[in-house]
């Protein structure tokens, strides 16, 4: 059993001044002793001030580097400061903090190296669009086929990692704009074990999604390419070098 003080809750945020405070307060309610870290990814609004006032530690990128890099900055902080578990959730309030204790329990009880919160496990309903639902299903099926394990929600950003996985993620082999299906595939091929737990996702209440505009087209093409390239790479990458 890991002390809550050894748990880092990681919240990447880009222009989330209206929503991030509620996320921090929610985390505090369910994991009172855990450290809360907001990665401010070059926000132009008051995300830093609001997060500080809500009681979170804030690390600010000098400019916008993307969600994948923001998460890696958090992993680097966790490794440098000896945290055992990292749980990440979005700063836009879509991930209800009530599931945090379930992540901690699973990390304690199982030998899984990382846990994915799935919207579709147990057939949970979700408010996401048909297009994104279809994308999720396709990438889920592809990765499930490639790793010979069931994966229902490869694009979920609600995840938890043990320190063993973090040591891998702080290296330059982690180069993901969107750490989704290709990232999970890389972790699996590097020998890390994953499990999914059921979660619910709330509808977005404002702000700008990372999948607005033409980005889904770029995302889909890039993800197919990335999965293909990942399969061409050597199967096992050394976990810590």
């Amino acid at each position: 059993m890991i002390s809550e003080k050894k748990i880092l809750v990681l919240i990447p945020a880009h222009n989330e001044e209206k929503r991030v405070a509620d996320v921090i307060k929610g985390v505090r309610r369910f994991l009172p002793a855990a450290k809360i870290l907001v990665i401010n990814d070059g926000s132009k609004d008051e995300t830093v001030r609001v997060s500080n006032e809500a009681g979170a530690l804030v690390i600010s990128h000098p400019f916008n580097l993307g969600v994948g890099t923001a998460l890696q900055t958090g992993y680097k902080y966790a490794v440098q400061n000896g945290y055992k578990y990292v749980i990440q959730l979005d700063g836009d309030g879509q991930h209800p903090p009530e599931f945090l204790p379930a992540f901690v329990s699973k990390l304690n009880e199982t030998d899984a190296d990382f846990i994915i919160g799935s919207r579709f496990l147990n057939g949970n309903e979700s408010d996401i669009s048909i297009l994104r639902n279809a994308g999720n299903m396709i990438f889920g099926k592809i990765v499930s086929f490639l790793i010979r394990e069931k994966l229902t929600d490869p694009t979920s950003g609600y995840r938890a990692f043990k320190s063993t996985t973090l040591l891998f993620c702080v290296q330059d082999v982690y180069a993901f704009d969107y750490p989704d299906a290709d990232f999970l595939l890389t972790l699996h091929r590097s020998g890390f074990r994953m499990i999914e737990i059921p979660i619910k996702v709330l509808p977005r209440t404002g702000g700008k999604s990372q999948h607005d505009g033409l980005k889904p087209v770029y995302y889909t093409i890039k993800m197919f390419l990335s999965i293909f390239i990942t399969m061409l790479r050597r199967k096992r990458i050394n976990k810590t070098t």
Partner: protein
Amino acid sequence: MPLRLKIFTVIIGLTIFLGIIELVRRRKLREEYSFIWLMAGFAFILIAVQSDVLDYLSGLIGIALPVNTLFFVALVFIVLLCLYFSLRISALTTQVKNLAQQIALLQAKEEGNNSLSDRNTPQ
């Protein structure tokens, strides 16, 4: 190759050659990137002086007109150059990302230390 074209090609080659050297001298261009351009300038001069090289290349590749060989070789050169710069940009992107992360982490550490020392300072 007609004499007028030869003179024109030599002038272009020399201009590239001398222009690159001047840019390096003024430190506008790093030496490591100048090498490939100096080679390009040299290639222009070589083709003008020894136009047999172009004829030989045309025969080798199977192109009827030597001028088309020139275009073809130039295009391949530019494509390879773009690829080389994409490789450099990829490496630089990783370096910039790591630097930005390190700055952010160090800044947070420094702010943490400052707030700690503020709290420990006797009032």
